[in-house]
């Protein structure tokens, strides 16, 4: 049995999951901190 399709699938899933949560966490942090900064500026 060729193991490489299994290895590629495992690495692809791991990188996709890690990249997705990284981007989502970054965007939610940027959005929340920008909204707070905008409110403090308006004050």
């Amino acid at each position, binding site marked *: 049995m060729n193991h490489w399709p299994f290895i590629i699938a495992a690495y692809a899933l791991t990188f996709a999951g890690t990249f997705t949560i990284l981007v989502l*966490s970054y965007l939610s942090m940027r959005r929340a901190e920008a909204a707070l900064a905008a409110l403090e500026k308006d004050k």
Partner: protein
Amino acid sequence: MHAFANPARFLKIARPMTPFLLVIGLMLVFGGCFSGLFLTPPDYLQGESVRILYIHVPAAWLGMGGWSAIAIASLVQLVWRHPLAGIAGRAIALPGALFTAICLVTGSIWGRPTWGTWWEWDGRMTSMLVLLFLYIGYMALANSEDDRASVSRATAIFGVVGAINIPIINRSVVWWNSLHQGPSITLKGSTIAFELLWPLALTVVGFSLIFGGIVLMRMRANLAEAKLEARLRRMASL
């Protein structure tokens, strides 16, 4: 520890730490994965599929480490009522669940060419699946609350009680007959040959730093949202 529970002091440290953890973590992960995929030899028994080890083991470590951190944060919240403890618990839950799911999926993918089966209801795999359900339960409880800046007492108690599963996962391969191999890395040393082992150190440290960076970003987001909500409420009441 009490000093770091101050949100202002935490932010002062978290802001420079976030990119530092992520950059170093990504470099280590790419270096470790490249080495694991192309530089190490295949295992004499498992063949090429041993390369899945370099992502499966860090995922398992972070799934278990994540819940251990939730349990500590929950205990700190229950005992000392630190303002950051609930925020930390909330921030850890999603990445912890993700890495637990990655551990289960990569283990299943590894099992098919190695054991000839995608899944077996043995102690290690079942207790790891229970951990994923615990994460889902914790997130459901935390998200049912209005206060984004903390978690309720019930959620914190759930976080502490769920930690019972961590030693069960760890000892499962010793207590019960299992398809899963026994402990390869213990305090006494490793049964894995050094030629195969060294990239694992890079990916374990690398994924741990990325996990830390993700948790800091999520804590910062939760803190900013809580602060924003409090200011808007104050302005509405004026």
